């Protein structure tokens, strides 16, 4: 019953968003793809935080904290400053450039903010769209499986049916309302996640003080409290700080995150948005403490990932536990809806426009139909792809895209390079990431950072060389 009401609410938001974007002057592509650029400071903050802090983090992060201790609390927290600072110092740059050049998606933003021939623009637009489609398809597999896993336990139905049911709900509200519906439902989910975090942390503090919990866990296993390495994030104590760099790149380059910068209202105050985001990030970062608390209460759990489900079933009333599970589930759906929207637009808009040479083709209907087809594609992949390895699948998807887009998106702030530099940088980032992951078994945090760095060096070298070693070309 609760699930039906929540699903109906999300679809209702889709219907309302549809009316809203249709009532705006921005009909067609901009309305559906960029929410009619109606996203203000609070909704912008909510959608970025909800998408960055996926609901999966509510299960996976306490599990990692149970197994590895305080290092996970710090690593998980790094997403908060990364999203806040990434937005604070980068969103305006992207938003203004997109306004100037007219980019509706991240691949189009890359093509339109670099100078070159029409053929080069279409090549970069298509290639970036294709990469987005492939890597986000891979990423979506992990997300759909995760949501199926949680929903099947909660609704007591097989995983396959749970996945189909929930993806259908996501597809319906995304088809109805596009990015605006995605952003609004994200914000509602973010509020739910914040409430869940406060309740969970409050329950812990009612039972034991933080100092006492840390002291006791330290006596049981000092490595969990004062780790000498950053395992599972790296071998040295300082490796954990790379998670901040990774999360910063994640925020600014992944299309399903950074497309939000393009969809912000023209008169938005980014600094006000960052002020909303900061406390949200801190509150959402309290969730991994559940893992440490569960270790304090019961250090014998066989499966660390069961830390949160056991906590909800043991220390909360069934009603409160059920509501929090619903928040977790729908937070996971908010991430899937963001990916689905970015994935569909890469197919219906980026690849279609770049192949068809018709810049005016921004058919609203095509965008909506392709969201539905992409949802089917995601479900199909979920069932045919190799089972298991949820995290690995997700890391391959996000790491690949980050590696490719770091150069052309972030280094663009340093030099106004051309499309040749943009394309070469993307190819370099992609190739180095593949070599590092497959050939050298480099970790998921380090690989995209190193590959992105290689792509950035290529971008800067080619960009400056083409500009006669100046930041801006002498003649446009």
């Amino acid at each position, binding site marked *: 019953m609760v699930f039906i009401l929540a699903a109906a609410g999300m679809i209702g938001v889709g219907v309302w968003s549809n009316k809203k974007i249709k009532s705006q002057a921005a009909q067609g592509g901009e309305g559906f793809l960029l929410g009619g650029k109606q996203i203000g400071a609070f909704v912008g903050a909510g959608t970025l935080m909800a998408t960055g802090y996926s609901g999966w983090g509510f299960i996976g992060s306490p599990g990692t904290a149970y197994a590895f201790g305080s290092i996970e609390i710090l690593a998980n927290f790094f997403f908060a400053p990364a999203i806040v600072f990434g937005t604070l110092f980068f969103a305006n740059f992207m938003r203004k450039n997109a306004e100037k050049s007219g980019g509706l998606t991240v691949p189009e933003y890359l093509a339109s903010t670099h100078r070159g021939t029409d053929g080069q623009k279409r090549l970069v637009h298509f290639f970036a769209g294709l990469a987005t489609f492939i890597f986000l398809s891979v990423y979506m597999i992990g997300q759909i499986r995760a949501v199926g896993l949680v929903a099947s336990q909660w609704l007591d139905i097989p995983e396959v049916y749970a996945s189909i049911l929930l993806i259908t709900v996501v597809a319906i509200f995304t088809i109805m309302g596009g990015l605006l519906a995605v952003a609004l439902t994200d914000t509602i989910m973010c509020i739910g996640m914040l409430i869940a975090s406060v309740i969970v942390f409050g329950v812990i503090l009612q039972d034991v003080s933080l100092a006492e919990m840390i002291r006791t866990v*330290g006596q049981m296993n000092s490595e969990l*409290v004062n780790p000498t390495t950053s395992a599972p994030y790296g071998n040295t104590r300082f490796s954990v700080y790379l998670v901040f760099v990774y999360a910063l790149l994640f925020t600014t380059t992944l299309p399903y995150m950074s497309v939000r910068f393009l969809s912000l209202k023209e008169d938005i105050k980014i600094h006000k948005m960052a002020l909303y985001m900061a406390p949200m990030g801190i509150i959402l970062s309290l969730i991994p403490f559940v893992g440490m608390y569960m270790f304090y209460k019961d250090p014998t759990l066989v499966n660390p990932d069961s830390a949160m489900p056991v906590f909800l079933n043991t220390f909360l009333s069934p009603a409160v536990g059920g509501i929090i599970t619903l928040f977790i589930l729908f937070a996971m759906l908010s991430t899937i809806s963001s990916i689905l929207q970015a994935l569909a637009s890469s197919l219906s808009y980026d690849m279609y426009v770049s192949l068809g040479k018709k810049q005016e083709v921004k058919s609203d209907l095509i965008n909506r139909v392709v969201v539905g087809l992409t949802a089917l594609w995601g479900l199909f992949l979920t069932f045919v792809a190799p089972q298991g390895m949820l995290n690995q699948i997700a890391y391959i998807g996000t790491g690949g895209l980050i590696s490719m887009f770091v150069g052309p998106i972030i280094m663009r702030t340093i030099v106004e390079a051309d499309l040749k530099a943009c394309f070469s940088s993307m190819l370099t980032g992609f190739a180095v990431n593949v070599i590092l992951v497959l050939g050298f078994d480099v970790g998921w945090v380090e690989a995209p950072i190193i590959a992105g760095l290689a792509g950035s060096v290529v971008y800067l070298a080619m960009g400056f060389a083409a500009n006669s070693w100046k930041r801006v070309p002498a003649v446009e």
Partner: protein
Amino acid sequence: MKIVDKEERIMTGSWAINEFFIGCIVIMVVPLAVYLYREMVVVNRGDTSDI
């Protein structure tokens, strides 16, 4: 290891959780400082197009 030993005596007793709380302060202070700076600079300039 000496750094760890020294750090674990202060604050929460865990260097990672200490840094978590320091990070919480930084993440609040930086946006607040930028907000105040932006609002004051824009108001002083009399330019309201950016706020």
